[in-house]
């Protein structure tokens, strides 16, 4: 497990599919450092993989920042922010629904990633890029996720 940044807070480039491996490894280590259980780690890493691939394929590359967050009381979490300067998403509602895709893939990217995290926010401006911010919390018992159809 050597070779990646030791800390939780980091900024990683997403320029090629090799970078996806780094993003997954870093998020895995950061989630473990914050105190996530195995299932929650796996969910967040998978969400990160989906979102990083979106950034690469649809956004033409970009970056992700990871940061430790706290709710001011006992809970600790991890926030990931994916940013690209790509064409943006014209219809967010549609992009979040399953089965929607503008490239190759199963079209689960955004909607799927949303189901794997506790908080999900997307900001997209056609022509100037997309920012997706996701947050998950290391909690026991599991915190209920947003119920989605």
């Amino acid at each position, binding site marked *: 497990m050597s*070779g990646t940044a030791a800390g939780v807070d980091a900024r*990683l480039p997403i320029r090629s599919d*090799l970078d996806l491996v*780094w993003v997954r490894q870093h998020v*895995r280590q950061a989630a473990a450092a914050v105190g996530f259980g195995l*299932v929650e780690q*796996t969910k967040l890493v998978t969400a990160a*993989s989906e979102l990083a691939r979106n950034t690469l394929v649809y956004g033409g590359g970009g970056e992700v920042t990871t940061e430790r967050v706290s709710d001011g009381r006992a809970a600790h979490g991890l926030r990931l922010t994916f940013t690209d300067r790509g064409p943006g998403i014209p219809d967010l509602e549609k992009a979040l629904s399953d089965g929607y895709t503008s490239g190759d*893939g199963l079209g689960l990217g955004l909607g*799927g990633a949303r189901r794997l995290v506790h908080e999900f926010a997307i900001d997209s401006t056609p022509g100037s890029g997309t920012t997706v911010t996701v947050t998950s919390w290391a909690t026991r018992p599991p915190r209920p996720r947003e119920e989605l159809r």
Partner: protein
Amino acid sequence: MNHELPRAAAAPVPVLRLGDVLLITLQGDLHDGTAEQLQRDIAESIVRSRVTGVVIDISGVEIIDSYLGRVLAEIAAGSRLLAARTVVAGMRPAVAITLVELGLTLPGLRTALSTEAALELLAEPADRPHREPR
């Protein structure tokens, strides 16, 4: 941050032949290119060695995203066209939970608890009539 990729991530996955079954063991984090390469290697191996089954052991895989999930589904579908059955074995609980939450239930994929169970499954006649009790 060090940007040299570990050897394992870029190296091709070995495809072993065991009688009339191909055995592939996936480990760690798979790079997209490696997964695509594997898909081609399996199709070629089936044609070359005329095997009737493919077992993919994923007990060492820590995450499966929709990309890798799609690759596995395509390997199974492609093998079927070449008259070989594919069984994916040893998926970890955390990976299974995540795939389901992601919305990827992979209904076309045959699964087994372990490589041994997968080999047993492939040893059974192709379309074993499903015996219902009573």
